[in-house]
C-alpha cells in the first residue's frame, strides 16, 4: 500500500550550511511517527519542506505516491515550533479564519469553531480577543486551530514544548483519539522520553541525516537485544567476570546490575553461572532506552 506521506532524498542547504542532507522516509498510515534528534539536527527544516514553506534544493515530498500539491496541504494540520495567533482578533473569528484558510467553507468553519470552543471549555470566551486570554487558554486555541479542519495527517513541531501540563494531557488525548481514527501523526521532538512513550515509528536525525529509521519496537529489539537487568543479593561486583558478560553496570546499594552479553551467548547459561554465587531475585531482558540507542548510533556514525 502506498503510504500517504513519503520523503525522497530531501536536501536543503543555506550557503555552506547543510541543514538537511538527503532524508528519505515513508510514514505508514495510521501511525505516530517521531522525528527525533537534538536541536539543530534539521527536524524543523524537514517539516517545513513537507509543508511547502521551504522549497527543497533537491528531492521530493510525495503525497499518496505522487508529488505533493498545494491543495494536499488542506488535508494536513500543522503546528510549527514557533506558534502564535492574531492577538487583536476575537477567539471565534480566529478559529473560523484558520478553518477557512485550510479550505473549510465559511459556515462550516464557524460551526467547527463553536464546537471546538465547547470542547476546550472556552465557549464563554468566544467574543474575547486572544490577547485577553491566559497563556494556557491561548494554547488551547492554538491546538484547536491546528485540528479544526479535521486533517488526515497531523504534523507537529515540538508539540509539547511550552505547553502547560493540563494542555499536554489534552493534546495527548486528542492525538491518541486521532490515532484511533486511523489518522497519521508526525511529530518532532528532542526529548527522547516523549518519543519512547508515544511513537510507533521513528526517524533519528543527526546533522541533517537520517541515521536510524524504522519501527520503534523492532529497533529496540535489534539495537539492544543483549542487555539484561539483574536484581540479586550477593557480590554483584563479580558479575563482570562471569563468562559471556562483556560489561556490567552495578548499582550496589539498589542490589541491581545491568549486564551486557556477548553476541550469541545463551542468556540461560549466564543465569546458571550467576546463580552459583548470587541469590537471584529477577533476571530479565531489558529494552534499551531510546536515549541510549541514539547516543550509540550517533557515536557509531563518528
Amino acid at each position: 500500500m502506498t503510504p500517504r506521506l513519503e520523503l525522497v532524498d530531501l536536501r536543503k542547504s543555506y550557503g555552506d550550511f547543510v541543514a538537511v542532507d538527503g532524508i528519505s522516509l515513508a510514514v505508514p498510515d495510521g501511525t505516530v511517527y517521531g522525528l527525533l534528534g537534538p536541536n539543530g539536527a534539521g527536524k524543523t527544516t524537514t517539516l517545513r519542506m513537507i509543508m511547502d514553506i521551504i522549497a527543497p534544493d533537491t528531492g521530493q515530498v510525495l503525497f499518496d505516491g505522487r508529488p505533493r500539491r498545494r491543495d494536499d496541504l488542506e488535508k494536513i494540520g500543522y503546528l510549527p515550533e514557533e506558534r502564535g495567533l492574531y492577538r487583536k482578533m476575537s477567539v471565534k473569528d480566529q478559529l473560523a479564519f484558520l478553518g477557512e484558510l485550510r479550505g473549510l467553507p465559511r459556515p462550516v468553519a464557524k460551526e467547527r469553531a463553536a464546537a471546538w470552543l465547547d470542547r476546550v471549555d472556552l465557549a464563554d470566551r468566544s467574543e474575547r480577543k486572544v490577547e485577553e486570554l491566559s497563556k494556557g487558554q491561548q494554547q488551547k486555541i492554538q491546538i484547536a486551530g491546528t485540528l479544526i479542519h479535521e486533517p488526515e495527517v497531523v504534523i507537529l513541531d515540538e508539540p509539547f514544548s511550552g505547553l502547560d501540563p493540563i494542555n499536554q494531557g489534552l493534546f495527548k488525548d486528542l492525538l491518541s483519539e486521532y490515532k484511533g481514527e486511523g489518522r497519521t501523526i508526525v511529530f518532532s521532538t528532542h526529548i527522547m522520553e516523549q518519543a519512547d512513550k508515544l511513537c510507533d515509528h521513528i526517524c533519528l536525525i543527526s546533522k541533517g541525516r537520517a541515521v536510524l529509521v524504522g519501527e520503534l519496537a523492532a529497533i529496540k529489539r535489534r539495537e539492544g537485544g543483549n542487555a539484561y537487568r539483574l536484581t540479586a543479593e550477593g557480590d554483584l561486583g563479580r558479575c563482570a567476570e562471569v563468562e559471556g558478560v562483556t560489561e556490567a553496570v552495578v548499582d550496589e546499594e539498589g542490589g541491581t546490575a545491568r549486564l551486557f552479553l556477548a553476541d550469541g551467548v545463551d542468556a540461560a547459561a549466564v543465569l546458571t553461572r550467576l546463580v552459583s554465587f548470587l541469590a537471584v531475585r529477577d533476571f530479565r531482558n531489558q529494552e534499551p532506552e531510546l536515549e541510549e540507542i541514539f547516543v550509540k548510533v550517533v557515536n557509531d556514525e563518528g
Partner: protein
Amino acid sequence: MKGSLNKTFILAKREFFVRIRSKGFWIGTLILPLFMAVLFAVPALIFSSSTSQLDLVMVDATGRVGEAVAARMAERRDDPGSRIAQFSIDVVAPAADRQRQRDELDERLLGEEIDAWVWLDRAGLENDRVEYRARSVSNTFSQDKLEDEISAAVREMRLTEAGYDPQEIRDLIGRVRLSTVRVSAEGSREEAGEAGFILAYGLFFLLYMVLLLWGQQVLQGVLEEKSSRVVEIVVSAARPFDLMLGKLLGIGAAALTQFSIWMVTLVVLTAPGLISSLASAPDLNLPSISAAQALFVVVFFLLGFFVYSSMYAAVGSAFNNLQEAQQLSFVPTAAIILPMFFLLPVINDSNGTLAVITSMVPFLSPILMPLRIAVLTPPLWQVLLSIVITAAFVLLMVWVCARIYRTGILMYGKKPTFKELIKWLSYS
C-alpha cells in the same frame, strides 16, 4: 491558481474586517469630514449672520434728502461678508414739537424698536453736520456707508439747486468700484482662482499623509504577524505571495473606504451653492471638486497605496520589530516625500513639460497627477496613460517586494543589511 486566489481573498477579508471593526478607524475616518464641514460652513455662517439689518429712522426737514438717501441705499449692493448692515430706512417729517419728537425717538432707541435715527435739516447741512444717534456707534463700516450716501444725496441736491441737470450730475459723480486683482510671483490671477490652489495644496498634503499612514499600517501589520509568530501557521496554508497580496488588498480596501468617504464629503461640501443655500448665505465662490475629478483622485490614491505599501511590506518582512524596521522604512517614506519637490513647479504650470513628465513617472505620479487634476483638468489621454504606467509599475513593485517578503517573513534573529535584502531577490 483558484485555490491561491481563494486564500488571498480570505486573508484580505481578515485584514479588512479587523480594521473596519476598530473604533480608531471610524474616529479617524469621520473626524476629517467633520473638520472639513466646519471649515466650509463656519465662514458661510459668519457671513450670513453679519449681514444684519439696521432699522433707521430719518427725520427729514429738507423734504428731499431723506428720500434720496433711501433710494440710493436700496440701489446699493454690498459684497456679502463686508460687514456692512442692510439698512431699513423709515423717512419721517419733523413734528411740530421737535424736542418731544427727539425724546420719543430716543425712547424707541432704548426700547430697541429702532437701531438708530438721524436728523436732517438745513441748518445742520450748512455746517456739514448730520446727527446720528444710536445705542451702539461702533459699527463704523455701516456708518461710513450711511455717511457716503447722505453726502452723495446732499451733493446732488446742492448741485441741482445750483442749476445742473440731475441726470448729468449722476453721470459726473458716478461711483467707481475697485476690482481686486492680486499680483504675485506666480503670476496674476483673480482672487477666486486662488482658492482652487489652496484646495490643490490641501489635496496634496491629504494624499501624502494618508499614503504615509496606511503604508505604516502595512508595515506594522507585517511586523505584528511576524513578531506574534502567527506567520508560519498562515504560510503553511497560503503562499507568502498570497499572504502579502491579501494584506495589501485587505488594508487597501480599508484605506479605500476611508478615502472614498473623504472624497465624497469633499465633492458634496464643495458642490457649488450647497453650503450657501444651507447657511442661507450668498454664494461664496468656493473652489469645487467634481465627482469625475474625485474618482480619478481615488484611482491614483489606490495606485499610490500599492506602490508604497508593497515597499513597506517588504521592509516589514525583513525585520523583527518596529525599531529595527525604522532604519529601512525611510526608503518607502522617501518615495512618498519625493513628489513634494515638484509641488511648486507643477502647481505653477500644471500643463508644462515638467508637470506632464513628472505626472507619468511611477514614484511621483500617484501624488502629482491628482494635484494636476485638482488644479486644472489635464487632457484625458495623459491621465489614462499615467494610470497605465503606474499600474504596470505596481505589478513590478508587488513582484519585487514579494520576493523579499517571502524570504524575510521566516527570518528571525540577526537583522539583514540592505545588501542582503537585494540578495534575497535572487533566491528561487
